[in-house]
């Protein structure tokens, strides 16, 4: 028995092979037949979206990894420079497909900041609600989705069903399921439909039950634990060095959340804590996201209880077809489900942005960090590590 345990817990000494050059880079000679070059993606069930990993493996160990993006490049930032500000919204929201509302918010907030527009209180509550609903539908997919990467697909399917219910609520509030364009410069497009709160509460009760059950289904599952505890560890010293944000930073012990640190909209009127872990492995990141899910459900209930029934939805703004935003530059951020999501907006005083540069968390997580983390990992763990960083390729190649 003890011999078996020893075998199970055996870890190879990965520090000795392959040999490193004087710069610390692995010496890889493909003709030596000790290495194999393989591609994971862009079409691969374990890859989240259109990106691929060029892996050099020795045995089953990754010795070099390169992230390749560009399969989904649509030149959004370039297109925005040739469009009126209002026309930028349908373009901007597609920069991150699963969580489009963060894009709308940062663009609207950037325009409002440059033109000194105060958003009415009712619109701020509705924006907060929409951002939390967006986070909820992403986390319903992501939290059990981590287990799906390790062949525990049931939670993932279940989460997708519940996500669909939230998309139903989005549809009745905004008219759209994925892309909403509910947040517009100066405010929002509409009020809550009649009976919305009750229907949302019914959905939240199902999600409460789901959260309890995934604890048994996923987090106490022996396979999940074995494959995630101690795997894909992010050293805390990497957090600033690699620009790590959101749940990935919180799982490494950093209490960072844009909603708390730089309160925007109505977040400073809501009561919640930022959950952190210190293990910084895949399991810890999954736990942080599960607690984010609990927090989000609670925040939606708080918002629906606290928000007024009626109020102004929009501030007075210039005609959107002739809106010249004053010259200047700004950086606006929000906390997406993946972490800090920001927009650097530069106006030259014309009707179109001079520059709109989106900062998505995946830009650093999926490229410099992932390439570094995968070295010396087992090839069977690569997709689990990638999913644990919650990568979203469209926001890399805007």
């Amino acid at each position, binding site marked *: 028995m003890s011999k078996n345990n020893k075998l199970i817990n055996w870890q190879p000494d990965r520090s000795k092979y392959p040999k490193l050059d004087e710069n610390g880079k692995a010496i890889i000679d493909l003709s030596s037949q000790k290495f194999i070059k393989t591609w994971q993606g862009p079409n691969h069930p374990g890859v989240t979206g259109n990106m691929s990993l060029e892996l050099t493996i020795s045995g089953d160990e990754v010795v070099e990894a390169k992230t390749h*993006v*560009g399969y989904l*490049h649509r*030149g959004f*930032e*370039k*297109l925005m*420079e*040739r469009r009126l500000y209002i026309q930028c919204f349908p373009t901007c929201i597609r920069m991150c497909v699963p969580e489009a509302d963060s894009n709308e918010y940062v663009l609207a907030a950037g325009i409002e*900041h440059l033109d000194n527009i105060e958003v009415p209180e009712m619109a701020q509550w509705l924006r907060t609600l929409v951002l939390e609903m967006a986070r909820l539908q992403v986390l319903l997919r992501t939290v059990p989705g981590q287990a799906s990467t390790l062949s525990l697909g049931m939670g993932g399917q279940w989460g997708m069903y519940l996500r669909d219910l939230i998309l139903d609520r989005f549809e009745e509030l905004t008219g759209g399921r994925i892309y909403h364009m509910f947040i517009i410069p100066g405010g929002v497009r509409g009020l809550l439909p009649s009976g919305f709160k009750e229907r949302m509460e019914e959905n939240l009760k199902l999600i409460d039950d789901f959260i309890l059950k995934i604890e048994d289904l996923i987090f106490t599952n022996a396979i999940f634990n074995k494959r995630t505890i101690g795997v894909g560890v992010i050293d805390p010293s*990497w957090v*600033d*060095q*690699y*620009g790590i944000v959101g749940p990935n930073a919180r799982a490494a012990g*950093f209490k*960072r959340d844009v909603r708390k*640190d*730089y309160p925007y909209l109505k977040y400073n009127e809501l009561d919640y804590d930022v959950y952190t872990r210190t293990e910084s492995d895949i399991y810890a990141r999954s736990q942080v996201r599960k607690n984010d899910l609990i927090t989000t459900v609670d925040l939606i209930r708080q918002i629906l209880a606290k928000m007024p029934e009626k109020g102004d939805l929009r501030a007075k703004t210039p005609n959107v077809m002739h809106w010249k935003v004053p010259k*200047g*530059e*700004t*950086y606006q*951020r929000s906390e997406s489900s993946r972490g*800090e999501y*920001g927009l*650097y907006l*530069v106006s030259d005083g014309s009707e179109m942005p*001079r*520059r709109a*540069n989106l*900062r998505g968390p995946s*830009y*650093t997580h999926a*490229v*410099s*960090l992932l390439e*570094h983390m995968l070295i010396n990992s087992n090839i069977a763990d690569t997709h689990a590590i990638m999913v644990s960083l919650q990568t979203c390729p469209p926001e*890399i*190649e805007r």
Partner: protein
Amino acid sequence: METIINDIKTRFEVSNIVDQGNMSFVTCKRELAVALVTHLKDTEGFTHLVLLSAVDWVEDNQFQITYILNNPNRRLDIGIRTFIDRDTATMDSAHHLWEHAATYQRELKEMYGIDFPGSPRVDESFILEGWDDVPPMRRNFDTKQYSEDTFFPRPGRGSNDPAEYMKKKLYPNE
């Protein structure tokens, strides 16, 4: 923030200061930009590189490079602007300060043609593959012209002047 700005104003000759509360934008000379960024990171606690971006001011024949830095403990942000000549388009690399700076610089090389000598893999294509045209984020790259030259139009599709088309549709008798 005011103390930090006053300090760097004299030491790094920063100008054109725009104070937005917890966020400020300053301009500094190209030669001092990386030194200023290093100072802010090592001494003032701006340890998080949020963004490294470029703006093409084609009419002035200049590129603006912007470093947005964040101090997570004091919750402050600063944007460092510097201007480089558009024809030579070379800037000092900051890859030794942050690992992900190399990724930003690689993208800027590809999209704007701004070189960062010494930055790891700066010449490898990042998003585009086999691109040999004008760097596409430069203002003088015409996306519409590129599409017309590269792709053939599908039959049955035409384009109209929006103002003219809507006038005809809404007021056909006028």
